[in-house]
């Protein structure tokens, strides 16, 4: 299947067209095209080396593509921005390995993530406003860590770190969230709780979730894109994708 050329009347949060990246001759992304609409939640699956992480690197400004277009909100050419600028445009990223600041407390981690005040001078003069305090309380409640706000992030369990990182994403108030394998290392119960959380989030944000756990993806109840060798292999509902012959061949099939 092929993605239709971009129509102005169909707005998108993220638009990628013909993106290719190669490392020393190895094609990590091969003319990848994809489009995410406002408020959409999208799950990405694909075998190892399919280019999932590289795709996220390209979106977040970490890796420069060799060619192709990456547009955010139909106006910002993301290839011209670096990580910090992309983040400040409103794209949050969660890594596969939980990446929180271990020698800061839960509270300090979240405080750092709050939107605004990114310049050195603002950071030096920073005071927490009542509005920001409310926002923090809200996030703490959402990720269920109100009781742990003084704990050093390094002392949290794996699952808690994942949640803290998601909390930090929320603090950024991004339009688009890129989430890499959130369910890895979580108990079944935590996994389902996370899926519920994402569905809540999807009411206000666009989400792109990379995941291996099929149960989790099923619980998300969203469109699924299958990546293979750096390009899109199939796209549609989980059921339709699962029925796709090509997908069965490379990924699900024996």
């Amino acid at each position: 299947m092929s993605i239709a050329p971009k129509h102005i009347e169909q707005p998108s949060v993220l638009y990628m067209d013909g993106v290719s990246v190669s490392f020393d001759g190895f094609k990590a992304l091969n003319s990848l095209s994809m489009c995410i609409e406002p408020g959409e939640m999208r799950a990405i699956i694909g075998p190892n080396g399919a280019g999932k992480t590289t795709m996220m690197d390209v979106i977040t400004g970490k890796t420069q593509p060799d060619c192709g277009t990456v547009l955010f909100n139909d106006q910002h050419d993301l290839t011209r921005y670096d990580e910090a600028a992309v983040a400040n445009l409103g794209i949050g990223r969660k890594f596969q390995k939980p990446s929180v600041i271990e020698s800061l407390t839960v509270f300090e981690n979240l405080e750092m993530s709050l939107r605004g005040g990114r310049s050195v001078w603002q950071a030096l003069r920073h005071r927490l406003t009542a509005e920001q305090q409310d926002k923090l309380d809200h996030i703490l409640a959402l990720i269920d860590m109100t009781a742990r706000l003084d704990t050093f992030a390094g002392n949290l369990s794996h699952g808690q770190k994942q949640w803290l990182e998601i909390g930090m994403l929320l603090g950024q108030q991004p339009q688009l969230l890129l989430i890499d394998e959130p369910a890895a290392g979580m108990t079944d119960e935590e996994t389902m709780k996370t899926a519920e959380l994402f569905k809540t989030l999807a009411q206000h944000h666009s989400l792109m979730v990379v995941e291996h756990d099929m149960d989790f993806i099923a619980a998300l109840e969203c469109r699924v894109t299958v990546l293979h060798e750096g390009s899109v292999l199939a796209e549609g509902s989980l059921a339709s994708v699962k029925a796709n012959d090509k997908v069965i061949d490379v990924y699900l099939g024996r």
Partner: protein
Amino acid sequence: MPVQATHMGPITRLLTQDKNGRRLLLVIAVLAIVVPFCNLLFPAESVLHISTYTMTLLGKYLCYALLAIAVDLIWGYCGILSLGHGAFFALGGYAMGMYLMRQVGDRGVYGNPELPDFMVFLNWQELPWYWLGFDSFAFSMLMVLLVPGTLAFVFGALAFRSRVSGVYLSIITQAMTYALMLAFFRNDMGFGGNNGLTDFKDILGFDLQSDGTRAGLFIASALALMLGYVISRVITASKLGRVLVAIRDSESRARFLGYRVEHYKLFVFVVSAMLAGVAGALYVPQVGIINPSEFAPIFSIEIIIWVAVGGRGSLYGAVIGAVLVNYAKTWFTGAFAELWLFLLGGLFVLTTLYLPRGVIGLWPPLQQRWHRYRQQRDLVHQEDCL
């Protein structure tokens, strides 16, 4: 509790929360008053007299302590391991040295009112342009900040924008100080070559040989150290400080949170370089000489070692480390002239192996033991009462 703390101003927070810092400031303040007092007011025979030797030695330690704080600020809090911080220290020192040299005026051995002795000696006809202005104290003090600051800015802007990090950054800072050392060794540079700048006469009209001036310099060093500590503490206690820690622990997380890591690194690198410059400027009049060996890479490594011995990432640990290692060096080179390298080397190895958090890492366990002892004693006491 931290919720409230963040509502308070950083300085208030510093005073209420930084218990060890308060103790340190108190100790320095007491030193700043007592040492000059005992030196000037008590006669040499008195038991209370503190000799000029001890005072200049302590003054030197204070300068080193400020330098160590500068290094701890970037290494302990931001993870930038600079193996070239001696360069900023030396540049500050040279700026001060140039002022002191100009103050000599026509009292040099050749009596040239314009040129320092070494220039007369090497046939310089006129003062090079970069020496202009150093007859003014204000200008020189500005240069003490600006020269190291500008070098740090240019170097940092290049390196941090290109995302040079880790050992690569350490090695190019080392290359920087090494190149500067070679350059300053050249007599053609106009900084006195290997002999450097020496034979100073007075500062702001006060005779450098007099005890009063030395006491004044000692107080100035103590004040500079206290100020340097407070500035560093204000930075580390603010949100800026937490961003620095975030950069140290996970640079990419900080980036993806939208912080321009290079700006933060650059800011703190420049501040640190300026602190180092001030330390150098106060050091020079007290030891009486500035020479390119302060640029030697080994010296910069030694600074790192002071901080590591004291314990990085706490600021007061750096102060303790600098004083401790330098005191050990003073003592060893006098008492065990032939063996001191064994002792110093052994100290470094043992510290790394058994005190990974430095000397200050010893404190919490001791404190805990003390508390337990007190509790037990109280318990026994209570039982006795019963």
